[in-house]
């Protein structure tokens, strides 16, 4: 009964989504205020029914209703409760329902917090959001019904959730990512509404910035979680693979940074508004493209979800319709926003614009690399791979100018600056940066490759330059507490990026891997550590059996950690999984992963020394914090 209630609610929501487009749309045509204002209650109604549907699916999982095909495929009676809940978004149909659920949440929030914006503008915003919801609900109902039943012969028990997904990081990774992807629909809707309405100014730039910052912050945490999860779960110490699905989340993230900064230009200086509107369209287009790439199975990746070509085709058509319409509208209305304002070469405006050019080009390069194998295959029938050597070669050089400009942006003024005076302000910062970049690594390493000097140097440059800006501001204003949330937000965001860059640089150059054959009581050396294989025993868990090793980590005679890596066999699906054991640290991780038992006795084991790897996720969290602070600051105004 509940699954049918869920499906029925979904159909009602679908009808309301359609109504959300049609009735306010007619209201716009006929200048009928009541019909225009109907958008808000319809939005609430749609959200209500989507929530009901979501809860019905949740109920089905919690109650082990294996007559529902989706539940049978992704859950199991012996699955711990928390994983039964997260299994809801563990597969295609459920994660789409989550997408729609989150979109209704964002739309409802917009409807409740924007009463001060002009009615026709808001009406258009809700029509756009209604169309997006309509499209996704149509997709869900037509090709991906989460409530399809396996009657009359339904299984006694489910197929089980993929063991890889039975994990804390993966419970919250999709919802956070989707909060980001879906959140970008809001600035997109604002941009379309502006263009559609024929406006010539962008007074909503301020609000668009808050919404974009929020979505961006969620996306940042989502991506960081994915990276952290891959690191501790997959067993090989990697934290970024330039996998198509990672790229799918990274591209909108990069362009969102550009959007956040051009919105600042559009808001504070009323320039580059056309460019801002285009970026708002591009960010959401990339979110949709990401959805398509992940779900259509078109790219071979560890994430491939959907195997039904109908789904891929539908999504591609939806993507083309949305993006095509948006870009066509832009091409007609962009001329309303031509600037004739002159900007100085040495100015904050230029720093921002040049940074956004490099950011957008980086994202374009990633898009090119991700899609090229597809296009190449289609044109030449040959299979080609594009992996990290390409992405690192194009991405890193393009990010260097952005990192260089990051501290210069805040320190330079709007309008006119004298280059000489800027550099006088920063002379000591530059000197200290170069000195530390060369000397600091010598505290824990023997050589300082050029790449380290560049990466560490850029990170230090941002940290020291931003700190200087903060100190100058505190001096000017008299106390730390006088710093606005926006200023604090910028501080954490920029410094966070620097921390991430430093982490990436140091771990990439100074990490050490050893793959060894080791028997009980043998030891091995890695960096300044000695690792001893102390014990091995058989273990049993809720839905698995396996082996667990006990390793001791010594540094200069003192024990620093006990590590217990495991090899698990999940009984239901027969899958073998490696549970890595990590001794985390602010300055280094020691990471052990069991390989296979060896014929001659003992095990093959991989041991990694990962210096500063945690700085990567720390930096990401700082960026998210910065984003949230800035969004909060703007909202209160």
């Amino acid at each position, binding site marked *: 009964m509940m699954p049918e209630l869920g499906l029925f609610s979904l159909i009602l929501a679908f009808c309301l989504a359609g109504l959300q487009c049609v009735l306010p749309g007619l209201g716009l045509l006929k200048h009928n205020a009541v019909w225009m204002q109907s958008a808000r209650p319809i939005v609430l109604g749609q959200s209500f029914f989507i929530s009901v549907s979501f809860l019905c699916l949740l109920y089905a999982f919690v109650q082990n209703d294996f007559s529902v095909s989706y539940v049978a495929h992704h859950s199991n009676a012996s699955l711990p409760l928390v994983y039964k809940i997260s299994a809801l978004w563990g597969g295609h149909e459920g994660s789409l329902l989550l997408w729609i659920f989150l979109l209704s949440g964002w739309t409802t929030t917009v409807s409740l917090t924007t009463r001060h914006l002009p009615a026709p503008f808001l009406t258009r915003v809700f029509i756009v959001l209604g169309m997006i919801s309509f499209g996704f609900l149509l997709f869900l109902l037509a090709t991906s019904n989460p409530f399809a039943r396996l009657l009359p012969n339904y299984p006694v028990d489910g197929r089980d959730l993929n063991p890889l997904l039975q994990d804390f990081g993966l419970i919250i990774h999709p919802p956070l990512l989707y909060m980001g992807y879906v959140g970008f629909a809001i600035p997109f809707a604002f941009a379309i509404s502006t263009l559609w309405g024929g406006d010539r100014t962008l007074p909503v730039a301020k609000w668009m910035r808050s919404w974009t910052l929020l979505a961006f912050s969620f996306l940042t945490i989502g991506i960081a979680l994915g990276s952290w999860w891959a690191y501790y779960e997959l067993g090989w110490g990697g934290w970024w693979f330039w996998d198509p699905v990672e790229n799918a989340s990274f591209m909108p993230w990069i362009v969102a940074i550009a959007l956040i900064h051009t919105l600042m230009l559009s808001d504070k200086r009323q320039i580059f508004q056309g460019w801002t509107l285009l970026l708002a369209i591009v960010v959401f287009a990339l979110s949709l493209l990401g959805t398509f790439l992940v779900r259509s199975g078109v790219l071979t990746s560890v994430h491939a979800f959907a195997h039904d070509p109908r789904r891929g085709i539908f999504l591609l058509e939806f993507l083309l319709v949305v993006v095509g319409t948006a870009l066509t509208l832009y091409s007609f209305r962009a001329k309303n926003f031509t600037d004739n304002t002159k900007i100085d070469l040495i100015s904050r405006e230029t720093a921002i614009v040049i940074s956004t050019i490099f950011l957008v080009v980086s994202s374009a390069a990633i898009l090119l690399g991700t899609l090229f194998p597809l296009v190449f295959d289609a044109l030449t029938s040959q299979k*080609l*791979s594009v*992996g990290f050597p390409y992405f690192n070669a194009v991405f890193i050089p393009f990010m260097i100018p952005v990192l260089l400009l990051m501290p210069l942006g805040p320190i330079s003024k709007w309008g006119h600056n004298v280059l000489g005076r800027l550099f006088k302000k920063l002379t000591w910062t530059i000197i200290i940066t170069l000195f530390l970049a060369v000397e600091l690594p010598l505290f824990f390493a023997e050589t300082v490759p050029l790449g380290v000097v560049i990466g560490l140097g850029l990170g230090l440059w941002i940290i020291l330059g931003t700190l200087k800006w903060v100190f100058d501001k505190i001096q000017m204003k008299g106390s730390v507490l006088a710093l606005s949330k926006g200023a604090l937000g910028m501080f954490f965001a920029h410094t966070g990026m620097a921390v991430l860059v430093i982490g990436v640089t140091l771990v990439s150059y100074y990490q050490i891997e050893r793959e060894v054959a080791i028997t009980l009581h*043998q030891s091995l050396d890695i960096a300044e550590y000695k690792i001893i294989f102390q014990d091995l025993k058989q273990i049993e868990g809720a839905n698995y059996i396996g082996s667990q090793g006990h390793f001791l980590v010594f540094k200069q005679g003192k024990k620093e950690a006990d590590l217990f890596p495991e090899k698990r066999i999940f009984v239901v699906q027969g899958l073998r999984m490696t549970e890595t054991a990590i001794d985390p640290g602010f300055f280094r991780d020691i990471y052990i992963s069991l390989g296979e038992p060896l014929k001659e006795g003992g095990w093959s084991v991989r041991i990694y020394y990962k210096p500063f790897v945690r700085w990567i996720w720390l930096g990401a969290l700082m960026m998210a914090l910065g984003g949230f602070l800035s969004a909060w600051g703007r909202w209160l105004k």
Partner: protein
Amino acid sequence: MAHDIYSFSDPSQRELFTKVIHELRCSVCQNQNLSDSMAPLTVDLRNEIYEKVQSHYSESEIIEFVTHRYGTFVLYNPPLQWNTAFLWFGPVLILAMGLFLFGKYLKK
């Protein structure tokens, strides 16, 4: 003492081996390199590459050997040839265009 599964007398050989197994793709996996994959085919291939490195094969000879057997699909580093020119030069071209347009805007 535990011993390395793949041992090298010469550190440059170790570097070559590490570089090659990371830049080559497992042909039977979703998206893993020869270092991370545990597929039996990959384990065998790793051992073959190890032997070739020990026999002083150069990087290009090893790549040639693997692509001869599995095609260019297994190269994570796409070769620079006429039909991948847009892949390798595209980003720089787009950048040049962007900076050019901005330069024009500044001159106005």
